[in-house]
């Protein structure tokens, strides 16, 4: 039986639940968990002031329930176990996590899985800016793990990511995969501008029907059916994120870039209408 944290009070102030992660609560009693401090506005308060704590933490699963509080830092730095959020999350969910699983049954704010090192994040709604990105001043974004967003994503998905997989079911804003070092980003909808600006290696697949404008420093290389996509599709299907039927059989257009960086990055487009 999982540990349930049900919201018991309303607040307009930001709540940060940094440190409320399975490995830290697993061996604690309900009383100890209730006294655990969280940040509410600029005060530290016991968890029990905002949440009704029940259940059993020993199986490593935490459920956030009740009215969506949009708590920040859910699952930050977690290394194992599972967190399920029945509602929206605030900023930084799963940032710097190294293992385990986070399931968001709602939307996420900025910095979803920023600089994550491993594990799995699933979002049933949309996520805002900078998914899997590097924090300001950092050289690397996510270095491993998987982020699946069923809805749309904001600007700067996977900025400077080094490894791992990001899949977005809807569309994305500007700057997808800018500064990417390696890794894979798949977008089933359409994208904004500056796709893969400064990318060195890695793959960005954009499968939406809208024609996409690419930077001048990307070169068309030809058409192909990447075998690699079949392997990813199989893995995504296993995770409950099926790619559209027929995608693996379609001819994709391959572009190489960004020539201003290493130039070994790839952009795959399914619908090449109007793109240079």
């Amino acid at each position, binding site marked *: 039986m999982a540990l349930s944290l049900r919201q018991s009070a309303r607040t307009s102030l*930001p709540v940060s639940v940094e440190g409320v992660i399975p490995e830290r609560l697993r061996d604690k009693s309900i009383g100890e968990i209730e006294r655990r401090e969280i*940040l509410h*506005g*600029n005060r530290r308060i016991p968890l029990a002031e905002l949440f009704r704590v029940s259940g059993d933490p020993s199986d490593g699963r935490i459920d956030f329930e009740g009215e969506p509080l949009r708590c920040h830092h859910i699952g930050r730095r977690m290394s194992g176990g599972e967190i399920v959020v029945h509602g929206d999350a605030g*900023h930084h969910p799963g940032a710097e996590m190294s293992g385990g699983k986070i399931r968001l049954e709602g939307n996420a704010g900025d910095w979803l899985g920023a600089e994550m090192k491993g594990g799995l994040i699933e979002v049933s709604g949309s996520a805002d800016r900078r998914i899997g990105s590097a924090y*300001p001043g950092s050289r690397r974004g996510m270095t491993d793990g998987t982020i699946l967003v069923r809805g749309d994503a904001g600007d700067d998905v996977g900025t400077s990511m080094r490894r791992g997989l990001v899949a977005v079911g809807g569309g994305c804003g500007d700057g997808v995969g800018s500064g990417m070092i390696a890794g894979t980003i798949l977008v089933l909808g359409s994208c904004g501008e500056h796709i893969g600006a400064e990318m060195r290696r890695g793959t960005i697949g954009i499968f939406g029907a809208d024609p996409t404008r690419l930077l*001048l*420093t990307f070169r068309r290389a030809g058409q192909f059916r990447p075998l690699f996509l079949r392997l990813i599709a199989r893995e995504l299907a296993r995770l409950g994120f099926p790619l559209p039927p027929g995608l693996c059989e379609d001819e994709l257009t391959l572009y190489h870039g960004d020539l201003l960086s290493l130039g070994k990055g790839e952009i795959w487009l399914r619908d090449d209408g109007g793109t240079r």
Partner: protein
Amino acid sequence: MSAVVEHEPASAPRVVEDVVCTACGCVCDDIELQLERDRIIGARNACAMGTARFLAYRPEPGPACLVEGRPATFADGVERAAHILADARYPLIFGLADTTSEAQRVAVSLADWVGACVDSTILEAHGAMTAALQSVGQVTSTLGEVRNRADLVIVWRADPIESHPRLFSRYALDPRGNFLPGGRGDRYCAIVDVRESASVREAADEFICIKQDGESDALWTLRALTRGIELDPSAVETATGTPLAIWQGLTDRMIGAKYGVLFYGAEPLGTRRRLAIPHAIHLLVRDLNERTRFVCMPLRGGGNLVGALNVMAWCTGYPAAVSLAGGYPRHGPGEFHADGLLGSGQADAALIVSDDPTSRLTAEAKEHLERIPRIVLCSEASGASRDATVLFRTAVFGINTDGTVYRMDAVPLPTRAVLASSFPSEEGVLRAIERRVRSLGAADRDARTEGE
């Protein structure tokens, strides 16, 4: 605190030399003011913007402090302000762009004591410059170096003749420099913009017109040409609105320059996100430094915004959008920006330092600001700040107060009080609030210790 009023003979106009002007980012320090009693009647050397600022100075009488619209003593105002901030659960301190660095420093310290978020800038473009600085750095210099060395001046989507009227005449184009004995004749000025501006008509040797949405493609083209990467001429022309040959010519000139400078505009173009522009400019200049010497500089506006960025960076480690709510500085672009904190309804009290930083807030942010207790430090009697919970009238920055102001190249310059004011400086008000907040905190701690 309140400045001493000097008694001058009634009819003797006096002249004060080397006054610093804060009307634009140039922060000219050679202004000669003519004063008559408590009025400024002339400003020699100043441009139209500076002159207008100095001549508009009118000491308005009135109460130094209003609490809920009623005149109050300074001590009562400080007491109320300190309680608002100390009781708030998520206060916000913002503005800071039109005051001295000394006052900015106290504001950051106050934010630390009360666990507030502090933000100087509410312009996305400034956020973009900061982000570029953090991710790729900036090759830059002082304006003095530009004056003495720069033989190529590129202005990227800006109109300095209008926004920084003395930039060309004092630093960038006209002066004879140590290594440019010919002055204007030794320099070449190219302007890249979406329209033919006053600067293009009056100062440019070359004007390159780009498409409204072609800015980042133009920068990417220049970067590619600098690196010797071949581009498709028709694609370049479609994307930027200018033939590749023109860009090649500009690139050759940039690489051939002994010392180049690129000034770029700080105001956002249209509604589209401009994060990528400062980023691309800083990268281009970094690339150019493999071939020659090149620097870049954003054309920052007036006041002391650069000071705010610098002060916050050396106090907290981050230049803007800092939260001290957890007891240590945390940087959150987007998360801790003033308009975001207000627009999302999270901030529950606000301290606004300087005249009117609220004009750029979103409608939701303004609406929320009206609902929460707010303390305003303002040098003008009129304006949006009149219905503040606590309003402090302050001495005018740059005219009534001593202190430090940062030029757009981050050179700090001292400002002097040329005229006395009966109102306290922003620094004085902030210090008084800080002192009271600290004693409230100490009383709180004592009460808790006794309780234990």
